[in-house]
């Protein structure tokens, strides 16, 4: 069909100016003249998180999506430069509180790598267990958000119900439901007793039974498959080009998992696998994470089974190997990293977390802390995958990426 441009002066609505849109007025004018439609999704919108998406649609087809992030930018990198190394532990886990252990672990590993701190075996197992529990929790959270974006309220409730078990496990181990701040340089803050470990072991099995219900009602639901299949496809080449990370990269067929390629903690001592799919569409992005949940639960069980006895805090840090209580301040406040740049990769639930700390060798505050979160890395791929899809798919793709703006904005 041939298109005719209308040569009528079009005035973009005034409300766009007052709403403070970061795109130039010329762009808005161009959209209006070419008979497209500009939709602002978010930040106060039932189908968006803490960000705004400026969507240009032609009919029902998305032409371009411009992100407007930063609604949850809490200046973590600047604040980290002004606090003691040890005080940054709660700070670095705030980007994604449901994935706190992974964020915490990545930061601690930078310090340990710089100071060559040897971590006791038992502490490594506890850390791995916590990291995997948080991974399960985050995947469940994202599944719930995906469900509510597709209008499936039961699909929202079930994962959050199951997440209560994760929270309960974290409370029993660390004392907090989300922000555990439990991993410290040289180990963990407290030993975990055997009854708690047994509880967590049983919990993973009970959780698998509940996940079956979730599978029947949501994962295998035909309407869900219809909404997500062949939607927002990122091919392998595109995924690499846009630097997508984590399960979303694996859904596009790249076998990249930091836990495999650069194993840390005890991942190389356990048997597990990374799920990979070649489809690269929304449904398989979701399915990869569903399979990861099963793998993670198995890792948690292996951790509990193989956990050795012994100290949980390194001798280099504190004398008491069971509990840091009482000596937390004295052993940790004056950490000074040798000069240089230290970078670690950690596989968070949503992908690779990069911590890069630059120390000047004299201060007990870092000179520069660079945190690159998975959300920020795959934002570009997320935007690209929406081009050419329908407007209703925006939420489906959003959910399939599990995009969590606080994590991306930091």
């Amino acid at each position, binding site marked *: 069909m041939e298109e005719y441009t209308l040569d009528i002066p079009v005035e973009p609505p005034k409300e766009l100016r007052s709403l403070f849109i970061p795109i130039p007025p010329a762009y808005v004018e161009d959209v209006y003249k070419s008979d497209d439609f500009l939709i602002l999704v978010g930040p106060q919108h039932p189908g968006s998180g803490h960000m705004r998406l400026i969507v240009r649609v032609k009919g029902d087809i998305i032409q371009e999506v411009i992100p407007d992030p930063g609604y949850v930018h809490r200046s973590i990198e600047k604040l980290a430069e002004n606090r003691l190394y040890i005080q940054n*532990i709660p700070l670095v886990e705030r980007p994604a509180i449901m994935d706190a252990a992974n964020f915490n672990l990545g930061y601690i590993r930078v310090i340990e790598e710089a100071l060559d701190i040897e971590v006791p075996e038992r502490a490594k197992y506890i850390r791995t267990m916590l990291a995997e529990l948080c991974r399960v929790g985050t995947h469940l959270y994202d599944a719930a958000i995906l469900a509510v974006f597709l209008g499936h309220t039961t699909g929202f409730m079930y994962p959050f119900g199951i997440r209560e078990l994760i929270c309960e496990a974290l409370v*029993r181990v660390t004392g907090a439901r989300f922000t555990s701040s439990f991993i410290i340089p040289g180990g963990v803050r407290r030993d975990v007793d055997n009854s708690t470990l047994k509880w967590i072991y049983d919990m993973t099995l009970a959780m698998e039974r509940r996940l079956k219900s979730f599978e029947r009602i949501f994962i295998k639901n035909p309407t869900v498959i219809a909404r997500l299949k062949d939607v927002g496809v990122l091919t392998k080449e595109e995924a690499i080009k846009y630097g997508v990370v984590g399960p979303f990269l694996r859904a596009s067929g790249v076998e990249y998992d930091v836990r495999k390629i650069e194993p840390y903690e005890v991942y190389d001592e356990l048997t597990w696998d990374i799920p990979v799919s070649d489809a690269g569409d929304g449904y398989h992005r979701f399915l990869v994470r569903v399979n990861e949940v099963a793998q993670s639960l198995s890792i948690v069980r292996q951790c509990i089974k193989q956990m050795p006895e012994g100290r949980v805090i390194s001798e280099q840090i504190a004398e008491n190997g069971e509990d840091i209580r009482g000596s937390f301040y004295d052993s940790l406040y004056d950490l000074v990293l040798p000069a240089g740049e230290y970078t670690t990769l950690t596989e968070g639930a949503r992908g690779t977390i990069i911590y890069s700390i630059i120390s000047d060798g004299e201060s007990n505050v870092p000179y520069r802390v660079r945190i690159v979160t998975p959300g920020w890395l795959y934002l570009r791929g997320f935007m690209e995958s929406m081009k050419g899809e329908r407007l209703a798919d925006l939420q489906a793709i959003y959910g399939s990426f599990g995009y969590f703006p606080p994590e991306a904005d930091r």
Partner: protein
Amino acid sequence: MIRLEKVKTDPVETLKRHAEAFGEAVRQAIKPDRITVEYPRERRKYPECFRGFIVFDKEKCISCFRCAQICPANAIQMEYFENAYPGIDYAKCIFCHFCVDSCPTGALNTSKVHDIAFKAMEEMRLSAKHIAKLPEIVREEIQTVEYYVDRNTWKLVRKKEMDKLEVAPKPVVVKPRKAACADPENCLGCRLCVNVCPQNAIKVERCEITIEEEVTGTGCILEVQTELCTGCGLCVRQCPMQILTLEEVGE
């Protein structure tokens, strides 16, 4: 590596999935796996290690400032009474309990209180006076509830008896330490340690120094009265020359 198959969507499979989803819903409608904690009427039981509102024991406090200085949110600020005691601003507190773990004497302790709604931010700025006792909370609940989990089931167990919100203070396993001067010759005589010491346990005296009977001058002698020292370490951190240390003292 597990390579996932592309999902099939033939009509038979689709119908089967419809039936499964429908069946699950009907099963739940008939016999629900309910897990709701009906909060205002019942209270979830939390373990002893739960990080809740902090209870302060004035008797144990040695005014060492560790809690104030470790707080990542700067929520703890010391207030001078007969000694410097911590006051907590709950409008900033993030319940990380770094302070509880930092306290060398166990003066700060956790509790299971966590559900308080404040009407104003000024009320949240609590001084040591207010955190010495467990807050009295408006309570409506009549029972406690706990998650019971075994390998197959997950359900709620409701009990009529209420658990205590207080947590018994755990003893702190730290060897007692006292300040000592490691390198008395380098003392500048600035008296920062004397002024900062809450117990007045440090004395600095001017004295004459002779080295190898040739060079003479004035120096300072720093003396810590160990019977007064609580081991707070303020002087250690204050000393510009870093000549003070905390040393373990035997039982």
